């Protein structure tokens, strides 16, 4: 027999011998078991128990306002991530410079600092007697219990996700394309809009929705900066704080009701995003 086909036959035989595969099957079973208990089971329980209660939750005016505040704050923070993060992502993807590793680490810091501390930092930076605080106060800009404060806190925490997603998609673009576009007559800005942007807008959308979702789920920093938000003329809890309040103040069943409703709202927005992306052209 030819040595190659011999080896092949041996390999196939090896595939079928159950004995040698037992460790792999075992590892797989353990993994699936933990995944089911840890992720699927709590999610399923929330949906099963909470789903019938969603209409009731969504008829509570204060909860609708809470969602409004959360969505507004998260959307603003996603916009900040796009404006701030896109150029940074480009530079990180394209250039090597001194201290790049330090900048790299700084970009990751926000996801490593405990969120309560982020809240403290925002208050310290923008609403204390130090740094910018007095200047902002002189101009009547208040960060405590306002949409600005809430947005600042969640933007601090969530823009890292956007930068990383966009950066990794810029790295995938052949730099020679930019070189060619330049020699063909495009200015750096035109190169960005005609070569880079068409290739990264999907990642930008994905990054933005990721950081948006991260902002929606924030609670810790909001406890410090904006436990409630002055929204129009009302004092409104952000959705996560609202659910916390309902759990502490009323009880588990009440919290489940609102939790299921918030999860449903997030899922609907995710689905809408997916549909928009696929309308926007081909594969996401």
């Amino acid at each position, binding site marked *: 027999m030819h040595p190659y086909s011999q080896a092949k036959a041996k390999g196939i035989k090896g595939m079928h011998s159950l004995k040698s595969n037992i460790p792999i099957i075992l590892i797989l079973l353990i993994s699936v078991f933990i995944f089911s208990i840890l992720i699927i089971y709590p999610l399923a329980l929330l949906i099963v128990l909470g789903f019938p209660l969603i209409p009731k939750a969504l008829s509570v005016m204060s909860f609708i306002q809470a969602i409004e505040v959360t969505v507004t704050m998260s959307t603003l923070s996603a916009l900040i991530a796009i404006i701030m993060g896109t150029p940074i992502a480009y530079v990180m993807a394209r250039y090597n410079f001194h201290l790049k590793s330090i900048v790299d680490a700084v970009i990751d810091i926000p996801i490593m600092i405990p969120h309560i501390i982020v809240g403290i930092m925002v208050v310290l930076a923008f609403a204390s007697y130090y740094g910018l605080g007095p200047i902002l106060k002189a101009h009547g800009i208040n960060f405590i219990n306002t949409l600005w404060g809430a947005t600042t806190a969640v933007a601090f925490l969530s823009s890292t996700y956007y930068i990383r997603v966009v950066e990794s998609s810029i790295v995938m673009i052949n730099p*020679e394309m930019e*070189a060619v576009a330049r*020699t063909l*007559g*495009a200015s750096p800005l035109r190169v960005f809009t005609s070569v880079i942007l068409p*290739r990264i807008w999907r990642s930008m959308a994905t990054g933005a929705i990721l950081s948006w979702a991260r902002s929606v789920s924030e609670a810790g920093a909001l406890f410090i900066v904006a436990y409630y938000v002055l929204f129009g003329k009302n004092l409104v809890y952000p959705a996560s704080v609202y659910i916390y309040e309902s759990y502490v103040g009323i009880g588990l069943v009440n919290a489940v009701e609102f939790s299921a409703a918030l999860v449903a709202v997030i899922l609907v927005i995710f689905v809408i995003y997916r549909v928009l992306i696929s309308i926007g052209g081909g594969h996401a």
Partner: protein
Amino acid sequence: MPNMVELRGVVTRLRYFTLGPISTVFGRETYNVVLGPTGSGKSTLLKVIAGIYRASMGNILIDSVDVTREPPESRNVSYVPQGYAVFDHMTVYENIEYGLRFRGVPRQDRRRLIQEIAKDLGIDYLLNRRAVNLSGGEQQRVALARALVIRPKVLLLDEPLSMLDRETRDRIMIMLRELPGRYGITVIHVTHDWDEAYSLADKVFIMREGRIIEEGNPEQVFNKPSRVFTAKFLGFQNIIRGIAEGSIVRLSNEIELRIDEYVDGEVYVCVRPEWIRVARDEGVNIDGHNVLRGVVNEVIRSRFGYQLLVSIGNNLSLTAISSSVFKPGDKVLLLIPRESVHVIKD
């Protein structure tokens, strides 16, 4: 022949590499091939001419205009990188149109120019396709059309043939050779393949460690290189040290070669394997010069014939190409025509 591209003491410092100083000229409407091993700085040279890298020192002139401080978009240079960098989020038509849009060419004229160039390069059937899943040869021609349609003064090609199969390569080669005359452009083509350079070039440039160490017409550089590095790189597989006395070079106590040149002192003797004739050694007495006795050590098949490694005694061996087959251990005679022996003075 007036100059098209002129480099005056150009130095470019990159993080891990320094190019130059380079001073040279590329003639108008000529085909120039820059040859060098990997890492010699060929691609960097192209990018400096294109303006993608800035020159740290020196000046670059294109058509007598100093463009050293000009950005790539105003240098009138087209660049086709290795791998072609076809914009695959556009159609082939949009790819070719790209440069025209920045030149204020009206839509009607754009259409005509694109159709002309596409027809010229045989890709008109591709125009409406998205530029994905094109074959290597198709990508190559799309990239060329995109580069040529803007009528640049200079066309820079980085290893344009390295990603093509042999058949496509031979076809594209003919097309490339015609570019300077047909489009009135100066081509600077970078490669590590000396066959390619020999077939295409009006002038060749040899690069090593960021510098151009030798330049000239192909016949001269390929047959009479002035440096051992160039000789080695250009396929002189036999390079042996010897002592020259007039028109005789001694390779060892017993082996000597007659040469056409007249030199004295330590030299390198360079002979291309294909220039050596191989005959079976029937044991007859040999008279006449430049015939060496040897024993075949190794045989490697090649498309030009059998490449033999023949040991000729005194720890010396020569590589020769033979059209008839030999096997290791065979005794052979090597005939080296004196005009085929190139000598480089140490």
